[in-house]
């Protein structure tokens, strides 16, 4: 019984994923970063515990809504029991439909969240309807935050938030760094990873090794524009020879 439900739900989910990738053009493959001579970029997804975490949150929310619906129905029934009885199937259908859609959405959300970390930059893809891809180089990172709530601590996961210069992070911070807000501001949110310390250390090592303090150094551009040519051309050598001859003549 259990396995048949499992396989049915897996079959259903594969269908939903097929619709998402073919009809809704959700990219099927993980994002990559162009390797610019800096290590090989590594794509990964949030920890599987993150899915459990989202589902626990989801079921808690669903239970609260169910209790509220029951209380509401009991309240209505106390007034007119026929109305309560009539509303019961409507409420049940709406609730179960909402649960199914929410459950599907959480799985899709998990499967469409990708992080790519190379040794000098970071790319985050997130979203189902609106797909956000954020690219940040570590050189531009101003600070790194690690956030962990009690439930996340229980699951052994944490969020790493990477912030670049510029304002506008306020709205996302107020919303607890929720999905789409995070993509619009000057930050990248690496949600639900079990090795937050490693990612934090990687970022911090990169930040500390950077010689510039902050915004917009254009050293490479300047270096490119002024070729510091120390090679001796034939004119240099001719001039040097002439000097040598002069000095030698002085001696003689």
């Amino acid at each position, binding site marked *: 019984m259990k396995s048949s439900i499992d396989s049915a739900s897996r079959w259903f989910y594969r269908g939903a994923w097929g619709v998402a990738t073919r009809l*809704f053009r959700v990219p099927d493959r993980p994002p990559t970063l162009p390797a610019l001579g800096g290590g090989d970029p590594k794509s990964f997804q949030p920890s599987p515990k993150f899915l459990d975490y989202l589902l626990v949150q989801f079921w808690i929310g669903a239970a609260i809504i169910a209790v509220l619906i029951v209380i509401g129905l009991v309240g209505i029934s106390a007034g007119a029991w026929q109305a309560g009885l009539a509303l019961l199937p409507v409420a049940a259908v709406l609730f179960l439909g909402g649960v199914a859609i929410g459950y599907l959405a959480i799985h899709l959300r998990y499967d469409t969240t990708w992080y790519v970390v190379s040794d000098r930059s970071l790319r985050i893809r997130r979203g189902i309807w609106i797909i956000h*891809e954020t690219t940040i180089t570590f050189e531009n990172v101003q600070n790194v935050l690690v956030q962990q709530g009690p439930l996340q601590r229980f699951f052994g996961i944490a969020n790493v938030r990477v912030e670049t210069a510029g304002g506008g992070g306020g709205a996302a911070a107020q919303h607890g760094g929720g999905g789409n807000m995070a993509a619009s501001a000057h930050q990248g949110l690496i949600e639900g990873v079990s090795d937050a310390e490693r990612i934090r250390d990687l970022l911090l090592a990169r930040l500390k090794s*950077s010689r510039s303090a902050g915004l917009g150094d254009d050293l490479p551009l300047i270096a490119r524009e002024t070729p510091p040519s120390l090679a001796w051309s034939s004119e240099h050598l001719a001039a040097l020879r002439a000097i040598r001859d002069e000095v030698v003549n002085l001696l003689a």
Partner: protein
Amino acid sequence: MVVRLRSKAVHLKVAPMPVSTLPSASPGPSASASKAAAPSGAGKFDASQITRPDKSLLKYYLLAALLTGPAYPIAILPLIFKYETLKYSFDDTGISMSWGLLFRREVHLTYRRIQDIHLTRNILQRWMGLATVSVQTASGGASPEMSIEGVLEAEKLRDFLYAQMRGARDEGDAGEIDASHRPADGTQPEAGRPGATAASQEALSLLHEIRDALRELGKRK
């Protein structure tokens, strides 16, 4: 968005200005830009070729304005104006973008000042093969400083911008872009050029001779 555009444009008092007179760092903008893009594996992608949005952007605007419902005729006009006047210019140091018919707006930024790049595709844009590449610099505000719309090769453009961004390659890599401009302070470039080595050796021996001769001269005094 329309409101923001107008209010800012009023303050800026931007005079209508043909995009051909936009300041550009060099007459041949493609030279260095395409050279820098080559190592990123972007193939033949040349950002300097992008001057106008693709035609499908207008279709996208027409469809997106449908969402406003009865306000459609009012919502669509600024979008049509924006599409008709939208111009991009990618040179070897930065991006310029201008649009607007009555209220003109121009945005200029340099690649090195880019803080983060966002590629956003909603479902309509995915169906039409479009995307919005939002480029953010370190100025305040959560809204992006520049939203490049209507580029079909948005991912390549994004990776091109990423390659130009600060920190995407380290300073040593700048030499890989153009080896002849590499600072010749190390022995590495000379090893590749035997002629230069011979010349510098001769120069050194000449300098030694001059030094010795001057030393001799000093002793005689």
